[in-house]
């Protein structure tokens, strides 16, 4: 009897290694939401702000490429994914898949920005960094402006489907708004951010990237905010609002067309490369042929934005001899919004008031920069000026996500040249399947 007991104890002894408790591991790979959103330090806030700015760029290639291709600015003839020349171009009436990456990647990216911006706002509000009210205003203004920019990109894709704007609480999302309602809501976000930026003192407590050089103080960032507001007002056909927003933006008819806020890229560490770069002679992202043939003689924008490819490229019945050449290196910045677009918005605002002279003045600013002769306003009707505006926006903003949106809001999608019989031009992207039900 005793022996049995002894052996049982040996048994127990051999298990001295095992207590009853299992070790609870934290996450050894990354900080978690609990670590960051409650009691963030100033360094944490910097990390989160850089995070938002960084996420703004993730998957942006999907947005710009799909929108540019639907708008027939350029094609992907690499053949890496058949959907770029099939589904996206409405080949034989193909519809866009509401669960395919053409739809979902950009949608997801936009709302990741919104998530991170909202998280930044709650981190700011629960911070232990001892921020002043002005500093809080400034950072919240930045976060909200980024969020609005990102959501506006998706609204351009979703169009009449509308979008959700209030997404702060993951378990209690705001409703989908109509297109107009969405624009109004984004205008509200931008306006609120604008007023916060005006009460934000002289400097932000943490730094923005060099892509915001010239827009890195509350006062100058507010000009960027107004530039975005101008876009919203443009889509709203709100000429008065547009004029006011442009006035408070960084628009400068005498300034450099490229002045603006940019996404910047890097090749080291966790940074990402410019996803829109087209390697000469290699990546077959090909401009629509008529972009070359429709151009006015001497338009420098053709040569600066496309490059002749020996032998050309063709795929699936699509052919072109010109590669897209917007970004010469894989760290070339991509504009978020820049002066050239603002000047063109000025022209459009003036046209909305039938001010042909004023509009042509603005168009000539852009034309001069493109090496083209000035137009003579005295010989032009509103329609002539409108056609000139369409041309300038097409060439000035090539590949920057505008042509399809512009032609749609002008009711001119049918004017876009289709290169292949049976193709259709999609009016909007479907609402992702994950948003249904």
């Amino acid at each position: 009897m005793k022996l049995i007991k002894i052996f049982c104890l040996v048994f127990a002894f051999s298990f001295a290694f095992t207590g009853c408790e299992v070790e609870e591991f934290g996450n050894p790979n990354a900080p978690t939401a609990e670590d960051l959103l409650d009691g963030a330090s100033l360094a944490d806030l910097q990390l989160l702000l850089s995070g938002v700015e960084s996420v703004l760029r993730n998957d942006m290639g999907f947005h710009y490429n799909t929108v540019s291709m639907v708008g027939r600015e350029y094609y992907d003839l690499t053949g890496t994914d058949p959907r770029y020349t099939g589904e996206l171009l409405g080949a034989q009436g193909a519809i866009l898949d509401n669960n395919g990456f053409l739809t979902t990647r950009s949608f997801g990216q936009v709302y990741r920005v919104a998530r991170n911006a909202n998280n930044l706002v709650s981190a700011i509000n629960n911070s232990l960094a001892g921020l002043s009210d002005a500093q809080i205003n400034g950072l919240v203004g930045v976060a909200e402006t980024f969020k609005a920019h990102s959501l506006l990109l998706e609204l351009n894709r979703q169009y009449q489907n509308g979008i959700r704007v209030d997404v702060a609480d993951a378990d209690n999302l705001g409703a989908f708004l109509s297109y107009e309602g969405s624009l109004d809501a984004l205008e509200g976000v931008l306006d609120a951010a604008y007023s916060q930026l005006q009460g934000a003192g002289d400097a932000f407590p943490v730094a923005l990237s060099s892509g915001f050089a010239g827009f890195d103080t509350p006062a100058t960032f507010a000009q960027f905010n107004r530039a975005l507001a101008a876009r919203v007002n443009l889509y709203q056909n709100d000429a008065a609002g547009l004029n006011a927003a442009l006035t408070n933006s960084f628009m400068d008819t005498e300034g450099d067309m490229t002045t603006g806020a940019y996404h910047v890229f890097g090749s080291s560490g966790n940074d990402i490369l410019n996803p829109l770069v087209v390697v000469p002679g290699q990546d077959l992202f090909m401009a629509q042929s008529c972009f070359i043939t429709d151009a006015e003689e001497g338009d420098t924008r053709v040569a600066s934005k496309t490059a002749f490819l020996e032998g050309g490229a063709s795929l699936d019945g699509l052919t072109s001899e010109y590669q897209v050449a917007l970004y010469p290196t894989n760290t070339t910045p991509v504009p978020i919004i820049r002066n050239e677009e603002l000047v063109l918005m000025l022209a459009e605002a003036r046209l909305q008031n039938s001010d042909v002279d004023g509009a042509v003045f603005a168009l000539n600013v852009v034309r001069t920069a493109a090496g083209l002769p000035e137009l003579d306003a005295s010989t032009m009707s509103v329609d002539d000026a409108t056609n000139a505006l369409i041309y300038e926006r097409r060439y000035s903003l090539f590949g920057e996500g505008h042509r399809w949106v512009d032609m749609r809001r002008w009711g001119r999608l049918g004017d876009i040249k289709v290169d292949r019989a049976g193709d259709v031009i999609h009016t909007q992207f479907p609402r992702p399947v994950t948003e249904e039900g």
Partner: protein
Amino acid sequence: MLNSLLKYYPSVSNFPTYKSGILSEAVSSTYLLTTPIYINMQFSFFTKSNTRMKYFAKLSLLCAAFLLMASAAMAQFTANGTVTDEDGEPLIGATVLVKGTAIGTVTDFDGSYTLSVPESPATLVISYTGYAGTEVEVSSTNPTANLALASDVANLEEVVVTGFASSVKRKNLANAVASIGSEELTGVTSQSTMEGSLYGKFTGAEIRSNSGAPGGGMSVRLRGVTSVFGDQQPLYIVDGVYMDNKTISLGTNIVTAAAGGGNSASNQDDASNRIADLDAEDIENIEILKGASAAAIYGSRAAGGVVIITTKKGKEGKPKISFSQRIGTTSAIRLLGTRDWDAAKVESVYGPDAAAAFNSNPFTDYENELFGNSGLLSTSRFEVSGGTKKTSYFVGGTVQDNEGIVENTGYKKNSLRINIGQELASWLKLDVSTNYIDSRADRGLFNNSNSNTTVGYALAFTRPWDVLQADKDGVYPALNRVGSNVLETVNVITNREDVNRFVGGATLTFDIIQNDNSSLRLVTRAGLDQYTLRSTGIFPQSLSYYRSPGTLGGVSVSGSAVNQNTNLSAFLVHSYYTDSGLSFTTQGGVTQEDFYLDRVTTTATGLNGSQTNVDQAANFLTDQFILPQQDKGFFVQEEINLDDKVIATVGLRGDKSSNNGDANQLYFYPKANIAVNIAEFDGMNDGILDQLKLRAAYGEAGRFANFNDRFNAYNATAIDGRSGLSSSALLGNSNVGPERQTELEFGLDAAILDNKLGFSATYYIKGVDDLLMQQQLPTSTGFSRRVLNVGSLQNRGIELELNASPIRSEGFNWRTDLRWWKNNSEITRLDIPAFNLGGFAASLGQGRIEEGSSATQLVGTYNPADCATADCSDLDPNGDGFRVYGDAEPDFNMSWWNGFNIGNLDFNFLFHWKQGSEGVNLSTLLYDLGNTTWDYDDLTLDPAGERVNGDYRTSEWFAGNAGPWIEDTSYIRLREVGAYYTIPSSMLGDVATLKLGVSGRNLINIFDYNSYDPEVSNFGGNVLVNSIEVTPFPSAKTMNFHVKVTF
């Protein structure tokens, strides 16, 4: 309580005579009996932990006293004799046991035994694995019994290891546990990997290879799918060591962009799985616990089933030395060919420039250039084994060097195993197994790519008149329209896995009590499995697609994954016999497992000229992933055996894991089973019926949540030289718990005509509750998913097996096994909306999880014009926009093994038939888009007979029809065939026996699938939807010549 229990078993405290030698562990625990006492003891020892040391110090003294008592016992008489097979060859290690007691011995090198028998007369029970057992009466006046055992087709006497420390005779088993011995495993033909050797050899399994790349990459599913997002793979236990079977990403995604940009880890890069390291030739036996009813004792790790592997051990006798050499070749199962081109067709497809090139350039069949080669296979194997009464040893070494069919691919492995058993005292035995493996796999670059850089992908766009050959300076021309040059890729890049692995285990067995009617044994075990996997990806700056500025400028990926599993366990097994033939086996114990993976991948881009070292580069990205896990559990079980007539078992496992939301919550997994051997009942054994067993088993098992499921982690990002943090797409769930599997299994086993004909049938219902589902969150939350325990699925299946030995004669033996099995799964509950998963998009074929449907169904979009009804309810009854095109799960599997033995000639073959499964073939999609499909101009698909195949598929697809990509993946294969001639030692001067042979693998493949092989997976083996093909490494067949010398 303890005392009151002991009253029932007074003999436990009497320490009566100790009779004979140690039995082999396997047999003894079956026959030795037990009381339920130690369950109580286990509870009590925790309270006495402070006195453990003191008691332990007295242990050796007490043990010595115990042994003295034992040796003082008196023997009534000594029985003796020899045990041979039917041909009179001695059987070494056969078990001889006095019926109704724990007294026994094993036969020696000459097949002889001597055994002290307490009373006269007595019945001896003789058993030996692979032979039908028998009983014989001996007495003090007639103590000699010589026996010849007949071979046992139904394997009734085979001992099946079913748990941590116990085993059961197959005859008494209540589960359909598959058991595969070394002869079956590797005796017919050589095997590339351990799992590869299992194809078709047991019922209830779906084994598939993810690609033809050398070095493995396989998945095993036992009795259907057992999870939606979890790992489907079984747990592998090798000599008690939890052997890791991870698939670790190679980090080539930066080049291939298969999973989109930015991910350094992807499951599309065709990595191998780590159980491939285990050398199939080291294996003595594999037992497969297919579901929870058999595997419940492994608790939360057993949901995928458990594969228990026992490696070879030495046997008493003079050293047995063998050397074998295999030389073989491997070649593609099939080549697909090229499209028939003529100048007019080229011009119409690609334009006049291409037609001019077509007319002037040489015509090269690049598929044949790449895949038309054969690779050389060489394996050298060395084994030494032997032992004395107290010591046994086994040494096995393998040097394997297999080329792949693609240039610069291949698999090399060096494996050394040393297994030693030592009897430290008559009551204490130590078994140590060690295995060191050094392997290298050059995998090539295949599967999906979004940058057209994989060989398969680029080949789809390469035309026979394209000039890919390097110029005189060795510079390969760039092919703009293709993205990469396949010849360059094959010749220039490196994509390699190097593994150094040590697997070691030690088992210490204390026979604490061993007497006439009871025994108590303590089995303690420790195991270690550690490996370092280095992945090397070199994509030099000289590659045509990395030459220009603005490209990545060359990529070097250096990954290092260190994985360590350790496991510790201790079990007490108590066996107790009563005179009435009733016996009890009680066991209880505790286990602890620790797992740790640390993977660091450094990716360098912008390489300095021709440099490949990751520090010779302009840009670096380092990624670290750590995966810790700790599990603790206990297990108790009681088995009651009524004279081998009725065997009933109940047991309970409890488990905790750091992977659960609450690490210290204990999850319980019960089991119960019963087997009734009708043939053992009086009057039933009439000489024809050797076995008739009815069995039923129930058990539960689990699967842990993934470690990361609890966390909303923030990923590191950077912009402009400044670090940032951004929320990941996974919303954490702090309440996540394990999945729970419940399995109920019924079966019947029968054997007749001297065990010449055996039959086994099993029906099972296997349900999984609390399925971990990735709840798809509205994308507008900024998250994509959250893991919740919100679903159930059920598998029902039938497994039939017929074993026969139709001809059994001196010069000619024929054995045949016919197996048939099927499984149907159904999602029985889903608390979140139905969702698609796997694959790329609904228009390209995906899986879909929806209540009431098969878990492995394949759906896709359809062309509304194809609908017969206005609302499309004929194609889309649910109105969800998806049509069901098929199911990855086959209607049934069937295999047929035959073994002929004609004198010294052995001939074996194994057919495997899989019927009625579907898969997604996206290789044809890519070839169609490249206009290069081999069958592009055939007219076999369009029901209207108008569009040629290539046009038909793409135009249907443009119209929304995913159907052209979903194909039948049924096949019939001659999995294995081998013929061997043995020259007996008598003809070689008694020095050695020589075995010569020729064998083949997958020599016959019949399938109607429009690519290399219906059995591939672009996404590896660990995903539910593992039947999607994207330009894989083509599968191969092998032929081997064998020479084996045994001294």
